[in-house]
């Protein structure tokens, strides 16, 4: 499909059906895609919510500050505490006999009675040959997920869609498998009394950090991974050495910077699911013992990739090159430590020699795509991210970054997910969305948009245009990609659509810097 056709497609479908309720997934909220009708309802609706939200937020704000503190908090609470009851989002994991395994807030043992109640509800419905999925109680949704002998429950008043909350429970279960594999089921089969909490000892931060990522990491609902922006040559250099070690008996070789991929390589026929990468990276980054940079920098740990094989362990050699950049070498052999240590040495030599590590640090400083840098149309020639990234200290660069109120046509932010690459790219936040609260709100809005676009009952949809008092949101889904864009709430619809087309063109122009392209000479 050519770009002209794409452009024609989005324009046509939005203009042909300017107020088609069918293209909006927001059933029950006016159900209209048009800019005006239905908005009155929404404004009134919102005011009520904001009032109550302020009250509820007081508790969560008082302890969240701006930076997130890892690990378990509010251990002194239980289901009788008012503060516990007011928390907006609870997660529980329990066994099929009602024994608590994990609770986001409060002490598991003090919540044993609550946990028993949850089990009673789930099992009662199950004994009738049915299964419970969702209970709505006022502002709260109670979402259930049964995974054999393990029950997961979310109780939320955040207004996230059911599909999102359920997806989050799936990830929590996946994280548990990363640590223990599905062979845990056998223990329950033999002994329903089985208590798995000792096996999860010391992993609270892994779960709390995963739960935290639900509000800042779009990979948790896009089911795609994201790459650190790097020049094509730099990424190639990293890929080449990873390929080299993969050929000597490594199943997966992954080089990452925080939650972004620098490069990754798999043995022939082995492929890595984005959810596995998310859970693996979360496990490694949240476990303090892996991070002891250059003291005991290397680690070797059994690890399960639930989407690859949920019932067995792989072994991961993990080494941090600096505070942000780490190498993970996955193998099936439990005695491969010395071999992998040797591989790491080879990788490190090459990365230093080809200055990949310093490029990585540079990219971290510069960030990725800034909406202010969206090339003006008519588009001429090829553009590079590097126009502002390298040389990084041109005076323009700073001017742009500081005045960043948004891009053309009021564009504030976008996320682009390439379907066949399983990757997404997300723009940097402009100053209009610079607090964690604002960013969380935008992600929640995207999440809702994602869920409505993928709604099996009324979807799938191609486009959605939505305006409320916070944003104009535009979503465009094709066979090849999904684009989510947020604009100033006063943005003009026609120019917003035009801008989305520019964004897609821009991404195409810089794709070999923002994505890991498989069609390299080192293809696997």
């Amino acid at each position, binding site marked *: 499909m050519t770009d002209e056709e794409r452009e024609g497609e989005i324009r046509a479908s939005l203009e042909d059906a300017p107020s088609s309720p069918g293209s909006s997934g927001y059933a029950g909220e006016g159900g209209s895609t048009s800019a005006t009708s239905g908005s009155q309802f929404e404004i009134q609706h919102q005011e009520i919510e904001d009032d109550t939200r302020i009250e509820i937020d007081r508790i969560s704000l008082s302890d969240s500050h701006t930076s997130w503190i890892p690990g378990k908090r509010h251990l002194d609470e239980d289901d009788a505490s008012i503060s516990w009851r007011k928390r907006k989002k609870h997660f529980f994991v329990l066994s099929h006999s009602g024994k608590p395994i994990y609770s986001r807030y409060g002490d598991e043992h003090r919540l044993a009675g609550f946990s028993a109640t949850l089990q009673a509800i789930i*099992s009662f419905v199950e004994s009738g040959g049915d299964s419970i999925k969702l209970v709505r109680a006022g502002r709260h949704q109670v979402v259930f997920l049964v995974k054999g002998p393990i029950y997961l429950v979310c109780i939320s008043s955040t207004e996230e869609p059911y599909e999102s909350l359920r997806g989050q429970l799936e990830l929590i279960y996946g994280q548990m498998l990363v640590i223990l594999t599905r062979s845990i089921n056998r223990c329950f089969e033999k002994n329903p009394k089985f208590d798995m909490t000792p096996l999860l000892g010391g992993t609270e931060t892994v779960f709390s950090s995963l739960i935290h990522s639900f509000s800042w990491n779009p990979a948790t609902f896009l089911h795609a991974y994201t790459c650190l922006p790097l020049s094509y040559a730099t990424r190639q250099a990293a890929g080449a050495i990873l390929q080299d070690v993969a050929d000597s008996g490594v199943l997966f070789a992954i080089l990452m910077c925080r939650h972004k991929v620098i490069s990754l390589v798999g043995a022939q026929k082995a492929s890595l699911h984005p959810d596995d990468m998310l859970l693996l990276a979360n496990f490694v980054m949240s476990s303090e013992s892996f991070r002891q940079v250059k003291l005991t920098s290397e680690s070797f740990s059994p690890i399960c990739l639930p989407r690859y094989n949920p019932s067995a362990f792989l072994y991961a050699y993990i080494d941090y090159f600096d505070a942000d950049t780490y190498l993970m070498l996955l193998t099936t052999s439990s005695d491969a430590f010395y071999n992998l240590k040797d591989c790491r040495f080879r990788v490190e030599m090459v990365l230093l020699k080809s200055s990949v590590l310093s490029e990585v640090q540079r990219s971290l400083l510069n960030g990725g795509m800034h909406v202010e840098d969206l090339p003006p149309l008519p588009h001429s020639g090829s553009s590079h991210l590097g126009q502002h990234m390298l040389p990084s200290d041109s005076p323009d660069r700073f001017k742009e970054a500081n005045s960043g109120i948004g891009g053309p046509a009021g564009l504030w932010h976008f996320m682009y997910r390439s379907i*066949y690459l399983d990757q997404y790219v997300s723009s940097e936040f402009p100053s209009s969305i610079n607090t964690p609260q604002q960013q969380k709100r935008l992600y929640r809005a995207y999440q809702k948009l994602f869920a409505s676009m993928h709604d099996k009952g009324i979807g799938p949809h191609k486009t959605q245009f939505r305006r409320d008092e916070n944003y104009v949101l535009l979503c465009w889904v094709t066979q090849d990609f999904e684009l989510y864009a947020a604009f100033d709430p006063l943005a003009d619809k026609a120019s917003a659509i035009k801008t989305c087309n520019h964004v897609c063109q821009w991404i195409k122009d810089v794709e070999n810097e923002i994505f890991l392209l498989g069609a390299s000479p080192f293809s696997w």
Partner: protein
Amino acid sequence: MPSRRRTLLKVIILGDSGVGKTSLMNQYVNKKFSNQYKATIGADFLTKEVQFEDRLFTLQIWDTAGQERFQSLGVAFYRGADCCVLVYDVNSMKSFDNLNNWREEFLIQASPSDPENFPFVVIGNKIDIDGGNSRVVSEKKARAWCASKGNIPYFETSAKEGINVEEAFQCIAKNALKSGEEEELYLPDTIDVGNSSQPRATGCEC
């Protein structure tokens, strides 16, 4: 993070309606008693921390409804219990006779791995009533039944006066703890790539 291992024990209380299951639990957990009868609907859940031989553990007490109409709650409720407490009223022969049914029902539903040695505790409640004059089940008779079922520990209590309640639950905790000790060994597998084709995930491969 203190990684001291804590144990959670699931304790199920069974018995006819009105024998004082909820009162026993309230006396034990909250040190309270009420003369007013309030039927339990389905089940009530209470938690109590107990210290036993320098170890701290949590009792998760499942107080079930005695009425027959709630017995459909079955398997779900009994699954994974560490101890089962059978309660009767020493002033009611029928409640004593039914202990056998409750015990059988529990063993069928919970299907513990070693039914012969599953820890039960029997409690004869309401010994305070009428100064013991309206009592119809003798201690001897009760103890004989307990002996015939594999020496089930037996306690006579008054939930109202708080007599023997603490002792009974101490024994419940001790027995539950004993049964919890033989834990399943967790033996995970390692992937053998050469052996079979792995389940394939999407993407990444070009």
